């Protein structure tokens, strides 16, 4: 099949182009035109090329003749689980594509069973980083329709944001005076523009995100996961001279590390038990054997892709049992046989169930951090400190999407218990974030909390078994949330303030921004004519509502989830239209701001229009199964199309089949609920902020405690401050006190002693040693002074001395040695 060879090449190149752009700007950024102006062109054309390749890949995918499921799944499809594994070390091109894996798998699987499933994926490795008996790390790909769609969405939105940012960031093209930073002298900070550095980080960000999407194994996901983290740190802290920005960047990074700790535990659990981190089956280049990937291990084909605890985890968990066996059994092969025979029994007893639970939960922990779920959502609103294009990218296509994407990608491995945890996390998140957004007055913060809330929706959808619904919402949300953020950026650009209380009536001066933002708002609340046509959010949100309703019908004890979703829809509609009415409708609140407002340049409005178009049509199902939803349906993980009831760790859970939510009463109820709640939210917002029927101030006054509680964002930051930050600071102060009081004193006293000894030594040297030398010198000197008087310079005197001396010597000699002279 051509697609098998073509797709990894296309997507691989699309993935690497932003890296090339990053490297180019890194080394030559300052030389790209005046003040690095050309960096925008380089980065934009790079991501544009990636977009083009992704679109080609999408076309290739649809042309490849993959079976297109009908939206309602009335007839069964033959299962086609194809796993092509190609290995070509050190080269991007899969040179030797091995076909045995393909044809064998196809033959056996197609004839094997009839299911309502069609899951096609291609996986393989480009390059093996490290291989040992127990671990193989490689750079590889896992491509299905989700991958291709995510590539298109990420590159498209990133392209729009790149173009927009070229206009938005023009201040950075010359020296910048940052009035928000006060120097010690009291003057504002004056610094060089960092235009090229912005685009450098943006390119790396896109590269990292695409790396997560294309990754063929969890280790690679983790690498790019961390790269996304560091990129967000660069970009949120772009104005790093501002204290708030550097704090926000650090907060985002540290909070994400908390989640990644859980992810590491999950990785270790999987690796320890299964010895592989590959998603799909892959060829081991050393042994030339096809090794099963995680998906195959957890949902083996011979078990009709039904989830089971893999042998590896069972054996890992049953270590004490094996020890008992080994006690009286010396033969190795015999022991192995015995263990293999005992594995099904152990599995029945529940060995390894907890390990799989912990693994899934650990991976989800990472996603909680990245996708800003409760309790790690505090970083996302603070991340608004970055430039608005960054917020748009972080909130729609890259950072936060990574978490939801990974849950979707990892879905086959997640047990119903984990899914229940995910659903509740999402539900709590969407509710908390939505309520906080009601009282926020910073336009970007409202959008930030709405992002958190929408991410809660996606998590909840995935948690209740709505694989397509959750990822569908991820994609539609990416379009309209980036649109909303870019619109808010346009407003901020015009008003030079984030405070909605100073805006109002901007519809007249900024028509493009206002109307495109209205489209975004309608899309996010899921507006549409029921059962006929709607904005993109209408389809994805309805799918989530329907799945949640179905889940609460089949599991009545969890029906609170449906209440959260429906209530969340109402609150979403309310705060989104509160935002729109406060910003664009009515009369100007601040005349000064209003007079200076102006429509943004075309380089900024053009991406708005492009995104607005997609915010409308992204959810539409085109004829021939070309809609996002049916494309996603092609990659539904094998074995998840049927309703499954399990007695899990957290009680009995029935995971309903997703296609059942599309039919009959469930669908109608969900659609009407979504429509009515959204309508109610919009009407309430209109009553409070468009026509002053209800005074917001009066409402705030009437519900004072609740209002204060929400303004303080549920006191979560304060709680974390008391729980984590203050104790950490306390410990740090204690340690610092030990350092200064004990260790420093010890060292200081040592130094003092050394000084005293040295001064005694110096005294001895000065007085005794130098004294002796000086005395010798001065004696010689004085003798010389005395003796020099002898040298009179008088010749005749010298002669006299000689004579007298000679005579004296002669006389003395005569007297002393009389005998010898006398003979």
């Amino acid at each position, binding site marked *: 099949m051509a697609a098998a060879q073509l797709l990894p090449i296309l997507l691989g190149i699309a993935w690497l182009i932003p890296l090339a752009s990053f490297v180019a700007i890194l080394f030559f950024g300052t030389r790209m035109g005046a003040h690095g102006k050309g960096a925008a062109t380089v980065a934009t054309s790079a991501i544009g090329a990636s977009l083009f390749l992704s679109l080609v890949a999408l076309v290739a995918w649809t042309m490849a003749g993959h079976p297109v499921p009908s939206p309602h799944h009335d007839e069964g499809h033959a299962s086609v689980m194809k796993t092509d594994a190609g290995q070509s070390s050190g080269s991007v091109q899969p040179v030797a594509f091995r076909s045995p894996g393909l044809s064998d798998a196809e033959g056996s699987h197609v004839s094997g069973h009839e299911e309502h499933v069609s899951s096609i994926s291609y996986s393989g490795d480009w390059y093996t980083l490290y291989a040992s008996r127990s671990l193989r790390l490689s750079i590889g790909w896992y491509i299905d329709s989700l991958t291709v769609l995510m590539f298109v969405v990420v590159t498209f939105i990133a392209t729009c944001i790149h173009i927009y940012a070229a206009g938005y960031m023009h201040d950075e093209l010359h020296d910048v005076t940052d009035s928000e930073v006060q120097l010690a002298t009291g003057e504002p900070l004056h610094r060089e523009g960092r235009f090229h550095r912005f685009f450098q980080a943006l390119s790396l960000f896109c590269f990292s995100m695409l790396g997560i999407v294309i990754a063929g194994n969890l280790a690679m996901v983790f690498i790019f996961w961390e790269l996304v983290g560091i990129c967000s740190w660069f970009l949120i802290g772009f104005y790093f001279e501002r204290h708030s920005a550097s704090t926000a960047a650090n907060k985002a990074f540290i909070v994400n590390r908390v989640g990644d700790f859980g992810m590491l535990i999950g990785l270790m659990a999987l690796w320890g038990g299964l010895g592989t981190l590959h998603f799909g089956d892959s060829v081991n280049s050393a042994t030339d054997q096809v090794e099963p990937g995680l998906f195959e291990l957890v949902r083996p084909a011979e078990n009709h892709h039904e989830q089971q605890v893999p042998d590896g985890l069972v054996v890992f968990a049953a270590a004490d049992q094996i020890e008992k066996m080994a006690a009286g059994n010396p033969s190795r092969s015999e022991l192995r046989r015995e263990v293999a025979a005992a594995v099904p029994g152990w599995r029945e007893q529940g060995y390894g169930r907890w390990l799989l639970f912990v693994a899934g939960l650990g991976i989800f922990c990472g996603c909680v951090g990245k996708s800003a779920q409760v309790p790690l959502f505090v970083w996302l609103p603070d991340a608004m400190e970055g430039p608005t294009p960054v917020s748009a990218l972080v909130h729609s296509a890259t950072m936060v999407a990574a978490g939801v994407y990974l849950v979707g990608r990892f879905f086959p491995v997640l047990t119903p218990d984990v899914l229940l945890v995910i659903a509740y996390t999402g539900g709590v998140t969407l509710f908390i974030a939505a309520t906080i957004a009601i009282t926020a007055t910073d336009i970007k913060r409202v959008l930030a909390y709405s992002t958190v809330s929408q991410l809660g929706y996606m998590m909840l959808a995935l948690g209740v078994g709505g694989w397509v619904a959750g990822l569908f919402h991820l994609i539609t949300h990416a379009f309209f949330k980036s649109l909303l953020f870019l619109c808010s950026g346009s407003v901020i650009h015009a008003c030079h303030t984030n405070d909605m209380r100073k805006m109002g009536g901007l519809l007249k001066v900024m028509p493009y921004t206002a109307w495109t933002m209205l489209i975004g708002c309608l899309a996010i609340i899921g507006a549409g004519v029921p059962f006929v046509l709607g904005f993109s959010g209408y389809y994805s949100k309805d799918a989530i509502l329907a799945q949640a309703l179905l889940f609460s019908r089949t599991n009545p004890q969890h029906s609170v989830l449906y209440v959260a979703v429906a209530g969340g829809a109402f609150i979403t509609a309310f705060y989104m239209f509160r935002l729109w009415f406060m910003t664009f409708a009515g009369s100007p609140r601040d005349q000064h701001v209003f007079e200076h407002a102006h429509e943004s340049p075309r380089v900024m409005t053009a991406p708005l229009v492009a995104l607005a178009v997609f915010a409308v049509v992204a959810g539409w199902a085109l004829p021939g199964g070309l809609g996002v939803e049916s494309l996603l349906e092609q990659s539904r993980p094998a074995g998840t199309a049927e309703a499954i009831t399990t007695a899990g760790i957290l009680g009995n859970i029935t995971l309903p089949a997703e296609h059942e939510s599309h039919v009959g009463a469930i669908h109608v109820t969900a659609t009407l609920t979504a429509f009515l709640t959204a309508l109610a939210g919009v009407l309430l917002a209109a009553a409070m902020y468009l026509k002053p029927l209800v005074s917001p101030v009066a409402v705030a006054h009437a519900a004072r405690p609740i209002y204060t509680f929400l303004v303080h964002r549920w006191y979560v930051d304060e709680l974390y401050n008391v729980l984590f930050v203050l104790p950490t600071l306390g410990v740090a102060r204690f340690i610092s006190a030990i350092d200064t009081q004990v260790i420093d004193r010890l060292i200081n006293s040592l130094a003092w002693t050394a000084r005293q000894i040295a001064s005694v030594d110096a005294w001895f040297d000065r007085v005794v040693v130098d004294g002796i030398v000086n005395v010798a010198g001065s004696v010689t000197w004085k003798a010389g002074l005395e003796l020099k008087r002898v040298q009179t310079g008088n*010749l005749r005197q010298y002669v006299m001395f000689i004579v007298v001396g000679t005579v004296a010597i002669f006389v003395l000699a005569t007297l002393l040695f009389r005998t010898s002279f006398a003979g």
Partner: protein
Amino acid sequence: MTFVLCGVVSVSHYLVVGAVLFTCGVVCMALKRNALGVLMGIELVLNGANINFVAFGSEYLAGDGRSVLGLDGEVMALFVILLAAAEAAVALAITLNFYNNHATVDVDRADDLHG
């Protein structure tokens, strides 16, 4: 003990003459202020010494035909004369220069080397 000048002329007589010459020379050197006079004294001292050399080297001092001291006094005398000539040349040159600088040959004025 007889008075030395009363006997036959022997080495002692020569030695006496040499000693007288030597003493005269030394006295001349010590008392003369004129540099030329000092030079003359030096010549006297040298010649006194020469007489000693010649006396000890004479034929009849060597009773058995061999030199008593084992060296030829006349040769040594010749060396001394040679040295005296060289010394006189250098000394006269110094004196001349001294005269050029100080317009006198008084050695008492030449005390530049005092300590």
